[in-house]
């Protein structure tokens, strides 16, 4: 499956020396400011913002292009210092919660929040530690928002703390049925629920197979992958994760209308199994521990597993930067995960910085031009459009509660705990044949791609000036600056090129877009000039060149 080294030839050896195994900050070599043209700096900035925010804006590009790549470190530091925008607060200020109002609130957050990096990392985490409202949680909008805030709280925190808060979240408790999980009852053939125990290990922390630090699978002497655990281990953790239920119940079986979906679950000692259990890597949980002591011991035993660093690091790289990171890149980041330089494991802030500042993140597209990057997620294509072109409604809201139907992706609405796509998905055909991964392609098929293309069409052509039959909640694009450029097509396309595709537009694409714009002739009426800009944005956004974040 892994062939990166074939296309990352000597450059990586060079890189390793120049990087000094770094990634902890400032490891990237960069050209002095004076030697780089403004255009190049802008393109680098736009590319960086695609990896670290919900979409590049002209203001952010301007601000970042005043510096060299090396100084992105300062931007990261500044971002990390910003107070967290809370989805709970955005949603909570609404008088009433209409259908899927948490989706609208999320769109508002993604498009407008200042703490873009924190929230973008939370988005990545939400696709690893998955919960979804598609099962039984649809009405728990504040609980879902609070779960999002838990992820965002730990975007730059410690992964071990994230494990605790996710495990005790009543939303997760309900989603993977650890809530109400009780000790065995042999007379009634009832044994603990294995759901959370299994998915916590398989999907949230260590995965199915033993990994090397660079994310590649370890193989036994016969060349087979080595399972990380067996059924006995799942059963053992299922026993440990007993005795937790909604906070504030009078008794374990109490039923009421308003269960507490916000506060962490609480332990109910009578329902906790207190036997001794053998856990991962032969660690033995002693008997007669409290529910909380057992939980901490169990989570520690998972966190200490050597798989956690490569398993989480690689997925975060895939979700922010590139679907096919080289093993060396994964290893550099995993090393930071294992030790942030201060002998702390699990420091996600250090990990995020290492991912974004790594030379492969900054220059990988130049060294592996045929594969580097990732297919943009549908949701990020929408937020990107609105951020780049100042999408806003008179009400200030971003109402698109059925975005899941339109774009086949929405926050906290995955079809199952396996997310919208698997990190190991590989598009059949040349991509799979060459042994590469393309996770986001799992959302794009011959049907969904039409829906996405059509809905982008609607979000652009039906949302421009001259087409002014808007409701107060219609998100309208502000294209005044672009419209003013239609008499200088190349200038217009340069601007769109920078915003949409970090300056990578081919001559052929530019010519094709011009051809379409010229179809509208010389008419300088408002509708026609708006249409010219709309044509360019639509065709570029849906072009094979732009849809891949490189």
């Amino acid at each position, binding site marked *: 499956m892994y062939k990166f080294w074939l296309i990352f030839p000597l450059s990586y050896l060079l890189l390793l020396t120049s990087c000094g195994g770094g990634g902890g900050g400032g490891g990237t070599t960069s050209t002095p400011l004076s030697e780089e043209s403004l255009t190049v700096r802008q393109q680098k900035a736009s590319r960086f913002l695609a990896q670290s925010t919900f979409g590049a804006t002209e203001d952010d590009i301007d601000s970042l292009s005043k510096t060299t790549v090396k100084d992105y470190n300062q931007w990261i530091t500044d971002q990390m210092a910003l107070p967290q925008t809370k989805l709970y607060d955005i949603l909570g200020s609404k008088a009433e919660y209409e259908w899927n109002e948490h989706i609208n609130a999320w769109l508002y957050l993604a498009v407008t929040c200042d703490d873009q990096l924190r929230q973008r990392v939370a988005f990545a985490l939400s696709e690893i530690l998955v919960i979804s409202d598609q099962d039984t949680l649809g009405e728990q909008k504040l609980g879902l928002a609070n779960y999002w805030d838990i992820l965002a709280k730990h975007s730059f925190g410690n992964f071990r703390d994230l494990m605790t808060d996710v495990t005790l979240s009543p939303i997760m408790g309900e989603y993977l*049925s650890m809530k109400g*999980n*009780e000790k065995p009852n042999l007379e*009634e*053939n*009832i*044994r603990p*629920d*294995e759901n959370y125990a*299994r998915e916590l290990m398989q999907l949230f922390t260590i995965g*199915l197979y033993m990994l090397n630090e660079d994310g590649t699978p370890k193989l036994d002497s016969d060349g087979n*992958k080595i*399972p990380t655990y067996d*059924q006995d281990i799942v059963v053992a953790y*299922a026993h440990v994760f007993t005795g937790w239920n909604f906070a504030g119940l009078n008794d374990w079986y109490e039923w009421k209308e308003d269960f507490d979906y916000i506060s962490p679950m609480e332990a109910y000692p009578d329902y906790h199994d207190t036997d001794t259990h053998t856990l991962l890597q032969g660690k033995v949980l002693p008997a007669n521990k409290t529910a909380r002591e057992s939980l901490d011991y169990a989570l520690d035993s998972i966190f200490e597993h050597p798989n956690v660093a490569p398993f989480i690091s690689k997925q975060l790289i895939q979700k922010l930067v590139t679907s096919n990171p080289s093993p060396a890149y994964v290893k550099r980041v995993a090393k930071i995960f294992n030790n942030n330089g201060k002998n702390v494991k699990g420091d996600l802030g250090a990990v995020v910085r290492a991912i974004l500042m790594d030379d492969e993140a900054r220059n990988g597209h130049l060294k592996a031009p*045929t*594969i580097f990057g*990732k*297919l943009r997620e549908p949701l990020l294509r929408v937020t990107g459009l609105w951020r780049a072109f100042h999408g806003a409604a008179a009400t200030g809201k971003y109402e*698109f*509660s059925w*975005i899941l139907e339109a774009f*086949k992706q929405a926050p906290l609405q995955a*079809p*199952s705990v*396996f997310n919208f796509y*698997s990190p190991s*998905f590989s598009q*059949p*055909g040349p*991509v799979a044949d*060459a042994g590469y991964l*393309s996770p986001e*392609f*799992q959302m794009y*098929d011959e*049907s*969904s*791609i*039409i*829906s996405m*293309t059509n809905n982008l*069409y*609607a979000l652009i052509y039906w949302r421009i000036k001259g087409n002014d*039959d808007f*409701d107060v909640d219609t998100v309208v694009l502000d294209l005044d600056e672009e419209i003013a450029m239609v008499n200088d097509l190349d200038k217009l396309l340069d601007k769109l090129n920078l915003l949409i595709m970090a300056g990578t537009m*081919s001559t*052929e694409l530019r010519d*094709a*877009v011009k*051809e*379409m714009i010229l*179809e509208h002739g010389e008419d300088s009426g408002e509708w026609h000039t708006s249409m010219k800009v709309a044509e360019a944005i*639509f*065709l570029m956004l*849906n*072009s*094979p060149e732009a*849809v*891949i974040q490189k």
Partner: protein
Amino acid sequence: MYFNRRDFLKYSSLTMGMTGLMASGLLAKNQKKKKFTDSKALVCISLAGGMDGYNFLLPVSGEKYDEYKSSRQNMAIAQDKITEITPKTSPGFSVGMHSKLGKMVDFFNEGKLALLANVGNLVKPITRDEYRNKTGKLPMELFSHNSQQKQWQLLTPSSEIGPGWAGRMADLMNSDETPLISTNISLGAFNNWQVGKSSRPFNMSGGEIASYYGMSNPDDTTDMKRREVFKKILAIPNEHLLSNAYGQIQSRAMQITDLLKVSLGELKASSVTYPADNWLGYQLQATAKLIAIQEKLEMPRQIFYVEMSGFDTHDKQVDRMDELFKQLGEALEAFWKDLEEYGVADRVLMFSSSEFGRTITSNGDGTDHGWGNHLFVMGNQVKGGEIYGKMPSLIIEGEDDSGDGRIIPTQSADQYGATIAEWFGFSESEVTELFPNLSSFSDGKIKFI
């Protein structure tokens, strides 16, 4: 809703049609040498999440029901919620199907539907002792959803990568090139089952076949210009593998949408009403239409994948299963009626799959991931009204229990698949090639056709 009323008016005013000339041009591309000349359509109904087959087909009275009840405890179905059936060969005790399955029980009685007892993923037959002593060969990661889905879908000795068995069937039919419309069509999620070495499935999740906005009205010159430019953009040479892969999906979507739009547009509307809010029914409705135009599309063989999720019943199982089985029964009832109305029922074989069964034991208010499972096949060519395979003992720690009531299968998915492939029209040697692991099971194919 996000779009306002005016938007909908705009949308509905978009002309959906294509000219007949364009359509015949597209169809001509689909003509090639055919391996088969008669028409058959295979429909896989994937019960995703791990369906609890032991509450699908179960003892209904007497000692075996008591045994069932004592093992399943609060997961047991009350006797009055089981409809007794009389298989042609008695398993030695009275059995029934969950009564919420509705019409499916009638299908069994009419001889259209057959039940398969205790099927599952195996490398070779394994006994309880071999399992407990860890001496038998096992599929990798037995109780994990995606691993077992993949195992089921690939059925190769190393079920990790490689083409799925429906994909391999399509490969055998079209070794030279992939047709314009793939033999394999998924109305559900992407699945590995339909990915071949050379053939590729056509994924139309949900069965939706929309037209492209702003590129579909042949009377609008701007639309047609945009269409031309868009196609030109998709054809720009690009060395990036991911850009190319995206361009291919978009190009395929444009071609296939045009073709299906025309062919489906000419199809007479069916009078059958599908159940509301039934996702499986929605997919089956699209499937019925595609089978109805099978000859027009010049596809002697079609393979469909439809999916019903929600079977991962770790909690609230009893109530959830009632609803799920009801939906399953209603969707199949409408689908079958639809196939009969289109006059294509005789060519269809439907079969169910699920990554695993569930534990006989309870986790409080649900069940966890098991292994062997009871499944069904249906079609006019099925020798129905019968249970194929041995009904397992449901005693905890009994002869068929690997532990906690995860029942060891006694028929393998390979045997199941091979039987289906034989019906599909493949020769003995082709079936052996398709299912390399079949020889590990001395019973060979299952005799339900």
